[in-house]
Each structure stands twice: as C-alpha cells, then as structure tokens.
C-alpha cells in the first residue's frame, strides 16, 4: 500500500464530462491494497465508466461485503454513499436499499470468498430476484486478508503459494449467474481495461440484475506458477467473444467497425450496446447457447470473456413487485397512513 496523501489539486486541462466533472471527481481515497493488486485496476475501470456515462456521483450507492474487494468502494466515488456491510451479505443490503429508492444506481462490489463461499446463497437469490444493480465479483481465487487460503472459485488442481493443491471443484460464478436468471452477464480481466470499462458501463445502463465476474489476480498470494488466477495464466487463456461499446441515445455513433462483425443490442433505457464479434458463432442474447459455449470452452481450458449474455427486454424486482414509480423512501404520512376513518372501519369488522 501507499502512504502518499492524495493531492486535491486538479490540473486545469483535465478533460471534463458533460456534467463538468473531471476524472478526479469520481475518485475516492488512496487505496490501501497491495501495490499492483488487480482490484485497483477494477476501481479505476469503475471510475472511468462513471465518468464516461456522465453520472452524478452522489446518485450512486456503493455496496460491499467483507474482504479485500469489499474494501475497494472507499477508493472510488468519494462523493457517493457507501456501505461496507457484513461478510457475504452485500446482496441483501443492496436489495433493501434498492427497494427503498429505485432512482439510485446500486453498485455492488464483492469477492470470490464473499460471494462464492459465505455469500453464495445471497448471490443466488439477489440475481434470481432481478435486483436492479451492478454486481461485480473481483475474483482472485484466494482469501487475501487472512493470508492465502483457497476460495471456492479456485480451480481443482491449482496450487497455493505454499504449494498445497486444491482438491475441490470450482464454482463458476458466470455459469451460475446465467442459470439463476441474471439478465446481463459478463466476464473480464482486471488487466484488460478496454474490455472492462464498457462492460461496466453497459451493466450500469442495464435494468435488472447485471453480473460481472472480473478475474483479478492477487499479486501477493495467487500470482505464481500453478495458479489459474495469475496475470500470466489469465492472459494466456483469455478468449474474448466480443468487444463492447456502450452508446447512450444523446450521442452520435462514431465508432466504425468492419461490416459483418457488428451486433447491436438496444437496452431498456434506449442505450445501445454495440458488440464487435470476436467469436463469429457467439450470440449473447441466447442464454442456452451461452451456457453450453462456456462449458465447452472451459473444458478446453479457456477463460471466456466479454458480454456473455444480455436480455434486452429485462425487468427488475420493482417491476415484479409493482411498486409505484416514485421512490418509497420519499412517501409521506398522507400516502402511507390510512388514518382514523380506516381504523373505525377495521374496528367495526372485528366485532
């Protein structure tokens, strides 16, 4: 970690977004993670995505559990409220927060210990309920804060820094997310910002449960030969199925790609996801196809990345609960309390 205090000075020439904010306005306090930690790259990608989408930082709520990954919300979006809850329970806290105010953006950050081990149940139920949120798992296959134990996403046969071999089957969060009904599912690599930033931006613009598994090597405990979550291993086995651009309606489309390799998907809010196809036969709107493609490639030892699945017609928990359009936390007595007349009628019915 660094002990340098972050200067508040802004270079006057820093580019500004349409809200007049610079990149710096989306930053948080200085990271206390290990130098070179993959998680810091993800924080940086989140900052970039929020900057590019022109989001007012205070309209985002950062939710996390416990662990290295869950500490990161302090390191981005310093003007946003954050909630570092209990281990493995971020999804329920985020669900409650989302119920209270449907107008904010909920950004959940978790890790593989937090979401695949202790919190597997909450991870599952949050996705199947369609909570409108971005759920990022910073996946390094290892418990960092407690010094290097395997997590549930560690591959069978991979070895720890001390040489112990993992004998248990791994949990593939992406396959689970597809099965559980997440309506936006992606996987990326902390070292591939070009892929990760638009993937996060697309997830923010998605209505419903958006899940992104980000392989994020632990430089201290899981970056050695024998690890399947190291920088080298992931780079060698990364098989991207597409590259993404997120276009919001007010912008003119400027990106140019070769014809025949593009696919466009329009989301609920009018934003357009433009996918540059790298695997010609991959259709990200086909959930069953995505599931079998992932399994086939995993059997070949490949780590498939990109936007793996999107349901353009997705809905969220509020739709299912038929809640009013206004945030519930803004309702007042007149809208909530039926008053004494209704009490009289209730009394009369109980005699």
């Amino acid at each position, binding site marked *: 970690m660094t002990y340098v205090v972050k200067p508040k000075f802004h270079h006057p020439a820093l580019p500004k977004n349409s809200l007049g904010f610079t990149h710096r306005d989306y930053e948080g306090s200085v990271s206390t993670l290990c130098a070179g930690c993959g998680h810091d790259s993800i924080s940086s990608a989140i900052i970039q995505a929020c900057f590019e989408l022109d989001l007012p930082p205070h309209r985002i709520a950062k939710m996390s559990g416990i662990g290295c990954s869950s500490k990161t919300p302090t390191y981005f979006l310093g003007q946003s409220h*954050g909630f570092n809850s*209990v281990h493995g*329970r971020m999804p*329920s806290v985020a669900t409650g927060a989302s119920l*209270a105010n449907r107008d904010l953006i909920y950004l959940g950050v978790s890790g593989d210990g937090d979401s695949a081990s202790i919190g597997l149940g909450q991870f599952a139920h949050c996705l199947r309920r369609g909570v409108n949120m971005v759920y990022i798992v910073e996946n390094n296959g290892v418990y960092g804060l407690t010094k290097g134990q395997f997590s549930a996403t560690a591959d069978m046969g991979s070895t720890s820094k001390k040489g112990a071999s993992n004998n248990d089957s791994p949990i593939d969060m992406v396959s689970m997310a597809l099965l559980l009904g997440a309506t936006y599912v992606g996987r990326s690599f902390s070292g591939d910002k070009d892929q990760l930033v638009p993937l996060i931006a697309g997830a923010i613009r998605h209505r419903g449960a958006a899940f992104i598994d980000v392989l994020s090597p632990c430089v201290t405990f899981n970056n050695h030969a024998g690890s399947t979550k190291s920088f080298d291993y992931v780079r060698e086995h990364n098989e991207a199925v597409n590259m993404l651009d997120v276009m919001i309606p007010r912008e003119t489309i400027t990106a140019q790609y070769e014809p025949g390799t593009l696919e466009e998907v329009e989301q609920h809010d009018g934003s357009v996801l433009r996918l540059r196809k790298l695997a010609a036969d991959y259709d990200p709107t086909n959930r069953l196809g995505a599931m079998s493609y992932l399994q086939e490639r995993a059997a070949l030892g490949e780590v498939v990345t990109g936007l793996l699945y999107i349901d353009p017609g997705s809905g969220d928990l509020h739709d299912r609960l038929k809640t009013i359009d206004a945030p519930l936390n803004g*309702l007042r007595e007149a809208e909530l309390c039926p008053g004494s007349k209704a009490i009289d009628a209730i009394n009369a019915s109980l005699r």
Partner: protein
Amino acid sequence: MSTRSDRRVAVNDFVIKFANVNGSGSASANRLFVRSIIRMGVPVASRNIFPSNIQGLPTWYEVRVSEAGYAGRRGGVDLMVAMNPQTWDQDLADIDHGGYLFYDSTRPVAPSKFREDINVIGVPLTAICNQHYSDPRQRQLFKNIIYVGVLAELLGIDMAVVEGLIAEQFKGKDKLIPPNIEALHMGRDYAQSELQGATGLRIRHADAVGDKIFLEGNNAAGLGAVYGGATVCAWYPITPSTSLAEAFTRHCQRLRVDKETGKNRFAIVQAEDELSSIGMVIGASWNGARAFTATSGPGISLMQEFIGLAYFAEIPAVLFDVQRGGPSTGMPTRTQQSDVLSAAYASHGDTKHVLLFPEDPRESFEFGALAFDLAERIQTPVFVMLDLDIGMNEWLCKPLTWDDSKTYDRGKVLTAEDLQAGREFGRYLDVDGDGIPYRTFPGTHPNRGAFFTRGTSKNRFAKYSEEGADYVENMQRLLRKFETAKGIVPAPVRKDAAQPTRVGAIYYGSTTPAMHEALEKLASQGIHIDTIRVRAFPFSDEIIDFVLDHDQIFLVEQNRDAQLRTLLINEGALDPARIVPILHYDGTPITARFIIEAIVRQWRALSGAASRDAAE
C-alpha cells in the same frame, strides 16, 4: 353416569375446550361459536393449542367464557367437546369434577373409557351427517356446524345471532348460507328433542363487551406497521410470526395501492432466510425507508451479526419477534417469553437494544406503529416482543385508535438544504449531547453529506479508525444514546394496591390478563401487592425505583431462567435477593391459578419468616 348433584352449574363463567383433528375444518366452526357468544355481550378468551403439523395431529381450541372479562387462561375444563379419538384419554382427564363430556356417539365407546364424576352428552354426529350428506368433504365440514348447533342449543346461545354471523361470513358467496344454516338447525333440532337440560352451563345476554374488538396480535401488529409508515417488509416464514407478515401484506393490498396507477406503495419480499430478511431491512432503512421484519427466536439467533451491525453503524430497524418455546426448534407452536435476553443483548461485542413489550393485540398495534418512530429517532434496532399467545390468538380488547394529527418522527436527518446551508456533518458526531448523531440518505446532495457506513470502528466523521480513543468515545456515546432512549420508550404502568404494602410485582406482555385476575383474587384474600407493568427496555428509573420502594418483588414471567429479572438486576445493579422469580414455561399461557398459588406459597413463607423475625 353421574348424579345431578355432580353437575357443574354456571352462567357466563366456564371453560369449553374443543378437541379436534388438525386440518378438519373445525377452526371456522369453533370461531363461529365464540363470536356468537361475544355478540351476546359476553366476553370470551379463546386460545388455539396446535401442533407443528398441517393435517392429522391433535389440535385444541380453548374457550373461556367470562362475563367478568378475565382474558387469561383459567385452567381446567367444564365442557370438553371431544371430537378426536386420538386424544380421548387425555381430554377426558382434563375435565373438572362435575363437568361435561360432549362426544360423537355414533360408534359405541366402552364404558371403561368414561369417568364416573362427569356428565356425558353423546350425539351421533357421524350418523346424522352420513344420513344427510354423501360427499365425504361435506360430511366433515357440516359435522362441525352440526355440533355448533347442538352446543348453541344446549348452552342457550341465541340462534338468530349464530345465523346472523353465518350470513356475514358467507356474504358474497350467498349460496353457502342456506346449507350452513340447515346444518346448524340439524344440531339444534337434535338437542331440542334428545338433550333437554343436559348441561347446567348457560350463556345469557349481557352487556360486558361494549365496543371491544376481537383480533389477533399478529394481525394488529401488521396493521400497526402500515400505520407506522413501513414501506419495506422482508421476512422468512416461521411459526408463530408468519401471519404477521401475511397480515401486513393483506392490509397493504387494501390500504396502500395507488388508486390511479394500481401500483403499490409498499414492497414485500419473502427472503431466502432470516439473514437476508434483516439485511434487506437494514439496507432499506439505511436508504431512508421504514422497514421491518417479522420472526421468532430462531430467526433472532440467525440475525445476530446483522443486528450488531445495525447497532454499531446506527441504522434503524424494526423487528417483530413473536416468541415461541426455545431453545433450538423448541416448541414451535407453544408460547414463551424466552427471547428477552437474546434480543436485549443480540450480537457479539457490547450491545444493548430497545425492546417493547405489548400486553395484547391493541398494544401490538400501537407499538407496531411506534417502533418505527423510535427506531428512526434513536437510529437503532427496535424489537417488538410479542409471543404466540398474543400473536396467534384472537383477544377481546379495546378498539384501535389513531390520532390523525400525528406525524412521523423521522429522527435526525440532514436534508439537501441543511447541507447546502453549510451545516457541519459528522455521521457519528454528538451535536446535541443526547448521543444521537445526524444522518444523511444516499443521493441527497451532490458534494456534501456522503459518508461510508461500516461495521468497523470509526471516528466521528465515519472514517475508519482503530484508535482506542475513537473507539471508546463512540462506545460511550452509544451508552448516552441508550440513556436518551429511556425517556422516549413507553413508560411502565404502575398500579398500587388498595392498601399500603411492602410487596410489589413486576410483569409484562401476555402475562397481563392472568396477572390482573390473580391480583384481584389475591386482594380478596387479603394479599395486597403493588404492581408495575414493564412496557420497554431500557428500563426507566420508575421501574428501578419501584424495586427499591418495596422489600420484596415478585417478577412473573414465562421462561425458565427469569430473563427479565436477570436483565433488570444487571441493568439496575439491583440486589437479586429482593426479586423472587415466578416462572411459568411449559408452553401453555400462564394462568391466574398458577400465579395465585405461587404467590400465596411465597407469601406464607415470607410471613412465616417475618413472624419468626418478630419472635426473635
């Protein structure tokens, strides 16, 4: 079998117990019977005694008819309606000397299976049903109505009242009214022709009900949550709290749907477990909605870690704990007051939580609404401690009231205007000296008032800190806040005896009706006791003073370990010798008989000691 001199004779004061089979449709017939008595102006206390089962196991419905208005269990049975052969022996044994046994005499029962000292009323219910109905389901359902007809006639219940209730019950499904009335009349006619004068028990019109209402505590508490402005409910099914969340749902569907859009001004989620329910409640409350969960002891055990977070991070949360018999799965369908300590000190580390103890369904409504004001004012979890007896039984109680001039107390929340005006904001800064800091909701202001909520220790400005001084200051402020809570929670209800006395009694929750009855009867025996009913924790000074004002205190409660006594001794630094526990914990609701017996025994021991002291 018995002589007429052995017949119990009583008007508007006796106990009837229905022994049924779970799932046989008896509940609605029994309820019809009870409501008929209430409509005749005679108070009734009714209790379901049921197993953890869907169909087939024994279930009982105990009805105490009491013109005097005693709402506690009396104990004993004057008339047993024995509809369940499985429990025949036990049911027979429960009948008081001179009491009555009502049974289905279609199949002969060996004479050895009866008792000499009770009166037997046999009615061939199955035979009557088989004669009139061919469909087995109809046979079962109408059998229940037929026995109501027989009993109504035997006890002198006004048949027009019963018919009126049937008509109300099936309003909108009008074609069901005539067959039900026909079945009722079948029972009535049989009783008129075959059972003239078979009992000495009578119901007579009276004027002792007034405007009272008959409702369950869970229903009332769910309604209280609607009135208290709850918009988010997250819960996991568990007996005996399930019907609270279901009542909230029902009331919301009727009272909280936006007329124009048809959309809901509420969100109810059946969570995957209790951890998730309380997590959602905390997330929603953190974000400015009024949120609650309903659970029972096992759920409270599961929620411990989250409750500690809410305490330490100072997030409002309302938990309805409908207590049942513990520990472990315990007695899921029986009542106890055995979560007092696990709720008061829930979570690891040093914690204390606000508890409310409603005495009946009416107060469950009142506290159910109040809990949200308290949780937001004090920024902490608030437990409403019902139990199965209050929660799942209909009680006759004073009507619910609501003051339309009342506004919600949202506590200390800084608005965008406050922040814009430059008010200093430290999330854990004690500005007013009452230990309660100010909070902000996410999304309030573009660049002021954001903070990081965490379960780790922090300084006044919500920055992570493991400095001992920061930690201690925060923990001391939390104690100050709890001190403030003392003055806000419902005050205890003190009632002094008619004559000066050095003896006092403390009680709370569902013990109340049995306690009131016991005190009245004890006073008539010359035993005078001052009382105080505890309605909340933290304990106000008035409760501590009450203990200090008396030489001897009886603390009556429904658990094995005298949990409220422990809490009182601990928090009030009181001498344990002053406080004698009177404990009832077999899973049945406490009775006046039990309390009287225990107090008389203690009283004799005390006066014996006093006279020995005097002799020395």
